[in-house]
């Protein structure tokens, strides 16, 4: 029997301070350990010998095939395993002509082919063994799994994940290139509810993320994010029933429309001045109503139009023109008017 090591924690995390970054990678690997089945990563091409074969044959197989253990089967059932240790014992006794059944280990730890990798990991950690035979549902020998097989299985799965993310990013950043029309645009629509402070900033944050995914530079995404945030908070704070925000993304420009159905602004010129605010004391306590919203927008966008009619509503149009190196969706040349 080998030394038993009762330690369920995979060795690579032992004694390490688990940082957020590491925690992220554990989570995905752990997740994979519950998704991938043992049969998907085990070695199915097996080298086996019958119990009446000679130890001489086992020694020869180990040498030629570069393996450290040979499985012993009888009528497809696993009956034992000859390890390097067993072979050494045999060599010490000088009994290479003895049958395998005399030197093989028979108390075997096995795994089920339909179990998940987490079972294999636990068993490796618990027993300290490096390779485990795998049985199928009929308890017949189906394969053998090593720690290396598990690692390879994880790496393959992670590589697949990584590749998928790459493809998604590539697709998003080449969105406009791949679609042919006289003028292609992507429109994002958001409904903003009156007094919904809980979701305040959700639309702007989503728009910023979308722009980054489309390949916009961070400075541009920030400018658009700030403009949309101010428009969004105006709809939350100052309207009767909230409103809508549409963001139209084109390779050469981003157009933002925010509108509502009331109450409307009496003097739009006055409203544009920094410091002008109609916010209540309650709103000011929350940190809003500095009178900087529309002014902030004017600093972030290239063009801005505020139209309003008392009792009817307000429409705010903002445009950001993209320079060639700021373009989103990699389609600047073909889409430019």
């Amino acid at each position, binding site marked *: 029997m080998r030394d038993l090591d009762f330690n369920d924690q995979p060795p690579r995390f032992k004694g390490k301070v688990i940082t957020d970054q590491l925690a992220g990678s554990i989570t995905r690997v752990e997740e994979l350990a519950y998704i991938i089945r043992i049969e998907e990563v085990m070695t199915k091409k097996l080298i086996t010998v019958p119990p009446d074969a000679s130890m001489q044959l086992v020694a020869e197989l180990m040498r030629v095939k570069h393996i450290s253990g040979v499985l012993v089967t009888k009528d497809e059932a696993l009956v034992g395993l000859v390890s390097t240790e067993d072979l050494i014992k045999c060599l010490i006794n000088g009994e290479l002509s003895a049958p395998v059944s005399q030197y093989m280990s028979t108390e075997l730890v096995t795994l089920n082919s339909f179990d998940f990798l987490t079972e294999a990991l636990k068993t490796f950690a618990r027993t300290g063994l490096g390779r485990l035979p795998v049985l199928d549902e009929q308890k017949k020998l189906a394969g053998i799994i090593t720690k290396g097989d598990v690692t390879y299985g994880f790496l393959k799965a992670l590589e697949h994940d990584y590749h998928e993310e790459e493809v998604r990013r590539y697709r998003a950043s080449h969105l406009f290139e791949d679609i042919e029309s006289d003028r292609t645009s992507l429109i994002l629509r958001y409904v903003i509810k009156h007094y919904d*402070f809980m979701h305040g900033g959700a639309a702007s*944050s989503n728009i910023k993320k979308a722009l980054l995914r489309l390949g916009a530079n961070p400075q541009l995404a*920030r400018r658009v994010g*700030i403009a949309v945030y101010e428009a969004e908070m105006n709809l939350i704070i100052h309207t009767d029933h909230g409103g809508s925000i549409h963001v139209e993304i084109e390779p050469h420009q981003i157009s933002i429309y925010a509108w509502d159905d009331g109450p409307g602004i009496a003097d739009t010129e006055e409203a544009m001045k920094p410091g002008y605010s109609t916010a209540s004391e309650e709103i000011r306590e*929350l*940190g*809003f109503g*500095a009178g900087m919203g529309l002014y*902030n927008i004017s600093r972030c966008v290239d063009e801005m139009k505020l139209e309003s009619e008392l009792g009817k509503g307000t429409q705010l149009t903002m445009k950001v023109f993209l320079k060639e190196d700021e373009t989103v969706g990699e389609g600047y040349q073909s889409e430019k008017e």
Partner: protein
Amino acid sequence: MTLEQIIQSLELEVLTAPKEVSEITPTSGYISDMLSCVMTGAKNQSIWVTLQSHNNIVAVACLLDVAAIIITEGAKPDDETIQKAKDEGVVLLSTPHNSFYVVGKLWEMGIRD
């Protein structure tokens, strides 16, 4: 000067640290409780000192990519705000001291932009 050193020297309570604080180097600071002023004034990777603790500070910090928010005078954000900060990767710190004291300390530590 890393965010970790600032946290230690000002004895700040870490409410959320979704990023590695030893790897963040704040380059500037900003103080205001008016969100639109923060929108105008706070730079990328700055430390924002405020006594506001409601959930909209997370949205602002996220849009501006600030390095961290220091919430002063012991104001505590609610659980939803803390969760939102974790989801959005915003570092939230808390202190019983007032904003004036905190900014003074940050100035002493060399954050003067």
